[in-house]
Structures are given as structure tokens and as C-alpha cells.
């Protein structure tokens, strides 16, 4: 009797489980991100899961400085990873290593081509490797020269338009008692440490590489060479205070003890956030000093791994997720723009009233648009992230006078050529 009861209970339990195929067939995507605004990411994921029953998304986050290394470890260690945040500087290397897949491999035919039409030029360049689109923009932004309007107005200083004028303004402020008028994000472990340098060089009209990818920056007449000399000069005149991360630049600028900084444009939104910054409203962006005022534009993106793409069900789910996060109607990209001030690569959002209203609270939207229009993409190859990891400490040493600008640029160019040759002969 007891056995029969147990058997009946077992059958009933099996029947109940079989009647709930949704729970049994849930596919869980492993989504790996850096930890910027994790609560917003989680909320976006929750909305995706609600809209796509049967697909769950597990978010794993790393700090920004550790992100690239951690991803390489995951790839090398075969840790399950389906969708990731991609960076423009790592994308060619990861593509060449076979870690990531072009979106064509997982998206329905012609979908990616249709979405490409809406992506800004520099952002499209940054998500493309060997003519194939590997990601859709999570955000696309520029690096900006930011200044404190009030400090400059009080001191009777015009907004500097060249780097020499920045030096003159900083020296005048220092003479007036400001110890370090410039705050610089100085952290050789951050990829954007090199990007910020490139952005400044672009402001001068620099070309760091020719069309055959030969380095040009070791020439003393190259504007990038001159910009490194400018930074070293500013440090030697004790005009600069180093901070290791933008999160420290925001409170530092809000002490009123500094007038200039060079950071990602979205940092301006945080600087001018009236909710938690005492000097909100005092900060504005100016065109990047120099003769062309160009700057670096870049895109971070949602990328599908090769492993996910190799499994049809997983690849399809990964595409659904990427399309939800960065595809039409661009709801998530708009959310990042409105709530966090992140830039975007999807051009239609520039005409979105909600975005214009939100951005108008912390920036001159026209100035932002003008800057985006002349922003240039960086030069990224399969070996550029390896080279950047080598070159950044050299840059850091030259900035603080521990190495000569000439030797730094020479060493950087030599290493670039070595890697280029090595890669060509692989």
C-alpha cells in the first residue's frame, strides 16, 4: 500500500514538472559587463526577461580596470560567456583570436545592415572588424575638455582655444592662489588613459598613424609628440593634479580648487548634477584646444561570443538580448542617455525630444552635437590593445618627467612596428 502511494506521488510530481515546460526549458545567458551603474543594467535585464519568457540573463560584473584581463581569463578558461561589453580597442584582437562572432552569425538576414544605417560613423568603425559588424553600441561618446565657467569668469580668463592658452590660463590661476588648475585622469592601467592623450592630439590635428599603419608620432613635428611635451611641461610647472579615476575627478572639480579637466563627456552630466554636486551648473565643455578642435569618438558595444554563436539556440537568444539592449526602438540606449548622460551611437536619438530635454540640463546640446560631428575614431588593430598596454606606462613616465618625450615616442613606435611585423608574419 505504501509503495503504491509513493509511486502515485512520484508520478504526480513528474506530471506537474512536465506540465511546466517554461521553467524546464529556460535558457540562461551569461552577460559580462563592467560595473558602471549596475542597478540600471539589472533593471534593463529584468525588462528583457519579462519581454522574452524562457530566456534568463545572469549578469557578471568586473571593475573597469580589470575588465579586459578578466574577459581574457574567461575566454582562455572556457568560462561560459555569451554576451559581453566590447571595447573598440579590444574588438579586433578578440575577433582575430576567435573569441567573438560577427552579428551576422546570429541575427536574421539583413537585420544588421538595416541597423547599421542608424549608427554614427565613428561608432560603426569601432564595432566593425574586417568589414563585419561585431557589436551594437552600448554607448558612444567623445572625450571632452571641460572647464569651470565661474572660475574663469571670476578671473577674467577667456575660454582657452589652444593648449598654449590653457597653459597661460592655468599659470594665471596658479598665480592667483589655485594650487593645481588642471586635474588629469592619470592611471596607466586604464585604456582611456591613452584615449585621452589621443583626443588631445586630435585637437591639434595630429595623425598618429599613416594609412599603412606606420607610426608617425615619433616625429618631433608630429602634433601628438608636441602634446606629450605639453603635458610634461604642465606637470613640470606643477599645474596638474593627478587623479586615478573619473569618479575622483568629479568631487575634486567640485571643490572649486581646479578649473580644467579632460574626461569622457558623460562625466559632465555627473559634474553638473544638482542632486549631489555643490558646484553643479558651473561646468561646461569647450572644443578640444588646438587648431582643428577634433577629438576622439569611440563606442562600447554589446558583443556576442563565438561560443554562444556556435550554439543555434543560445545564439538566437543572444541576438534577441543584444537587439533589445541596442536595437530599435533604442529604448535602452535612450534610457542610458536620459538617466545617465551617456552618449549614443544611434543617430535617431539626436532628434529625440526626451534626450534633448535631459541633456539640456547639464550641457549645451549644440556644443555636444558640434563636437560629435568632428570627432574621429581611433586607430585600432588586432595588436593595438597589446601595444597600448605597453605604451601607457611609457606615456605615464614621460608625463611626470621620468622619461624623455623623444625616447618614449621612439620606444612606442618601435614596439608598434615589432607587433605589426609579428602579426603580419603570423
Amino acid at each position, binding site marked *: 500500500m505504501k509503495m503504491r502511494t509513493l509511486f502515485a506521488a512520484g508520478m504526480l510530481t513528474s506530471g506537474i514538472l512536465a506540465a511546466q515546460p517554461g521553467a524546464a526549458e529556460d535558457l540562461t545567458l551569461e552577460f559580462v559587463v563592467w560595473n558602471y551603474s549596475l542597478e540600471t543594467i539589472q533593471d534593463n535585464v529584468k525588462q528583457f526577461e519579462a519581454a522574452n519568457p524562457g530566456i534568463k540573463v545572469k549578469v557578471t560584473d568586473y571593475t573597469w580596470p580589470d575588465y579586459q584581463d578578466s574577459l*581574457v581569463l574567461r575566454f582562455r578558461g572556457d568560462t561560459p560567456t555569451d554576451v559581453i561589453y566590447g571595447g573598440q580597442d579590444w574588438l579586433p584582437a578578440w575577433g582575430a583570436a576567435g573569441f567573438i562572432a560577427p552579428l551576422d552569425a546570429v541575427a536574421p538576414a539583413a537585420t544588421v545592415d538595416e541597423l547599421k544605417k542608424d549608427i554614427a560613423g565613428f561608432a560603426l568603425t569601432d564595432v566593425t572588424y574586417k568589414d563585419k559588424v561585431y557589436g551594437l553600441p552600448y554607448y558612444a561618446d567623445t572625450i571632452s575638455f571641460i572647464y569651470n565657467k565661474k572660475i574663469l569668469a571670476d578671473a577674467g580668463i577667456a575660454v582657452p582655444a589652444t593648449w598654449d592658452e590653457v597653459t597661460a590660463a592655468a599659470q594665471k590661476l596658479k598665480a592667483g592662489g589655485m594650487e593645481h588648475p588642471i586635474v588629469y585622469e592619470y*592611471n596607466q592601467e586604464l585604456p582611456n588613459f591613452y584615449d585621452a592623450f589621443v583626443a588631445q592630439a586630435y585637437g591639434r590635428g595630429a595623425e598618429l598613424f599613416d594609412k599603412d599603419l606606420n607610426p608617425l608620432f615619433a616625429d618631433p613635428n608630429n602634433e601628438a609628440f608636441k602634446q606629450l611635451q605639453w603635458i610634461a611641461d604642465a606637470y613640470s610647472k606643477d599645474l596638474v593634479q593627478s587623479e586615478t579615476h573619473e569618479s575622483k575627478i568629479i568631487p575634486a572639480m567640485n571643490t572649486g580648487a581646479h578649473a580644467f579637466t579632460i574626461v569622457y563627456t558623460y562625466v559632465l552630466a555627473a559634474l553638473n548634477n544638482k542632486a549631489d554636486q555643490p558646484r553643479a551648473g558651473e561646468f561646461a565643455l569647450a572644443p578640444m584646444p588646438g587648431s582643428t578642435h577634433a577629438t576622439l569618438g569611440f563606442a562600447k558595444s554589446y558583443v556576442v561570443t563565438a561560443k554562444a554563436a556556435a550554439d543555434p539556440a543560445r545564439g538566437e537568444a543572444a541576438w534577441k538580448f543584444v537587439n533589445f539592449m541596442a536595437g530599435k526602438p533604442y529604448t535602452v540606449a535612450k534610457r542610458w542617455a536620459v538617466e545617465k548622460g551617456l552618449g549614443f551611437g544611434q543617430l535617431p536619438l539626436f532628434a529625440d525630444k526626451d534626450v534633448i530635454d535631459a541633456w539640456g540640463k547639464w550641457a549645451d546640446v549644440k556644443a555636444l552635437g558640434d563636437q560629435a560631428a568632428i570627432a574621429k575614431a581611433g586607430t585600432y588593430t588586432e595588436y593595438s590593445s597589446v601595444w597600448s598596454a605597453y605604451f601607457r606606462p611609457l606615456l605615464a*613616465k614621460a608625463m*611626470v618627467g621620468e622619461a624623455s618625450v623623444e625616447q618614449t615616442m621612439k620606444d612606442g613606435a618601435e614596439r608598434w612596428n615589432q607587433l605589426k611585423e609579428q602579426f603580419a608574419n603570423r
Partner: protein
Amino acid sequence: MWTIKRFPALWLLPALLPVALMTIYPVAHAFWTSLHSVMLLFPGEPFVGLDNYERVVRSNYFQDALRNSLVFTFLAAPLVVVFGTLIALFLQRRFFGSQVVRSIVLLPWVLPGAISAVLWIWVFHPSFGVLNGLLRDLHLIDGSIPWLTSPRLALVSVVVAHVWTQIPFAVVLIMAALSAINSETLEAAAIDCRSALKRFRYIVFPEIRSMIVVLIVYNALTAFTSYDLVYAMTGGGPGTATTLLSFQIWRESFSMYDFGSGSAVAFIVVAISAVLIVGITRALPSDLFAEQ
């Protein structure tokens, strides 16, 4: 007759095999990697002999990283032992609240390296840092001292933070050694000799000498292979001012995708560590390493 004393090696195998697998295999694989070109971007893993070692030793960073690691080790290890011994001698006394003080002294031990790094970043921060604030309040400085961004000061700053994290372990071991000294010996010494310094030199020190040698060896190795605290505080910078060899293993492997060179640096670190151990134990002989 069946006895467990027969075939001792056989009985030890179940315990030895997993240990051997988990140590010998990774070390052997790392050594194999160091002799091959294992770069993420390039297909194949050809044998390159000692090329990785040569490239690493000739690289821009190696001289800086080796010098920094040695300076870091030669500053940190003795400081930990000296402060650890002084604090242990102090805490051995009974006084009001001594139990509370003992617990507080152990606090840095339980903090992960990354948390300690955050604490020390805020101590050394140029604008908001406790240290600059204190110095300004005491009117010793007018401006701010760039503790972590000046190449000259950054290494000193990370040594201070590292020493702080390592002192509790030294205190615990020295206190254990002190408690093992025969109390009658100490009482007799207190009667015979009024100088505390002489009592330490002739009575206490010989008794804890072995522990001190162990601590110096341990701290030299800890400092020489230190990674997390320094990485979190300075990222090896500014420039290469705080780049240590252990950090260079990571950089070569995961930032430059060159696992062959990363493994070569790792084996260089192992070789130097072995030299350090032999050097310290020969310079500071103690019966701990004597052959009966």
C-alpha cells in the same frame, strides 16, 4: 604479517598524488609555457627556448620592476619584523584594556588587500587624504603632497601600507614565541639585570631568534610576490615607479596577451625568491634550519 608499517610510500600515495598533481602539473605547464611562444593573437605555440627569458630581461620594464621589487622587499620585510616584535613585546604586558588593544592590532590581518588599499588611498589622497589634512592642520605643509602620484613618494607609500597589513601576523608569531620562554628564566633575568634592552638582547632575543628568521623569510617572500595591495593603490605607477615583478607577470600575460613571457617572469621570480631564502638563512643562522 599485515602491518601499516610496511610499504609506507604506498600508504602515502593517496595523499601525495593529489598534492603532486595540483603542484607539479601547473608548475611544469608554466615552465613549458615559458619555453614556448604562447601569444593569444598568434596561432601555434612554437618552442622558442630561452627567447622569452631574454626578451623579458631586456625589456624596458624589467630593470625597473626588479629594482622596485628588491627595494620593496628590503624595506618592507625588516620593518614588519621590527614593528611586529616591538608591538608583541608591548602587548605581552598586562594593562587595562590590553585584550581590546590586542584585538585592534589584529584588525589589518582580516582585511582583504583591496579593502586595505582603499583605506590607504584615502589616507594618502592629495586633496581629501587624512595625512595631508593632518599635516596641514599642524601647519607643517601649505599645499598638498602627492603621495601616490609622485614617482619618488609612491613606492614609500605602498611600503607603508604593505607593512601595516603584515604586522599583525608578525605580532601573533612573536607573541607565541615569547609565551614559550620559561617564565623562571625571565624572572631570574629581571633580578640579575635591570636594563630591559640587555635582557632583550641576551635572554629574549636568543629564544625568539628562530621565529624572527622564519618571519624575515616569510615577509621577504610575501613582499617580493606582493600584488593586490600595490595594484589596487597605484596600478604599478606612476610610470613604473611601483611596478613589481609579480605585477609584470600579470601585465605580460593578460594585458599583452603573452603567456610565454608572463611565465618566464614567474620563473625568474621563483629563482630570485630561492636566492632570497638561501641568502637570509645563511646571513641569519638559526637552529631552526640546522640539521640536528
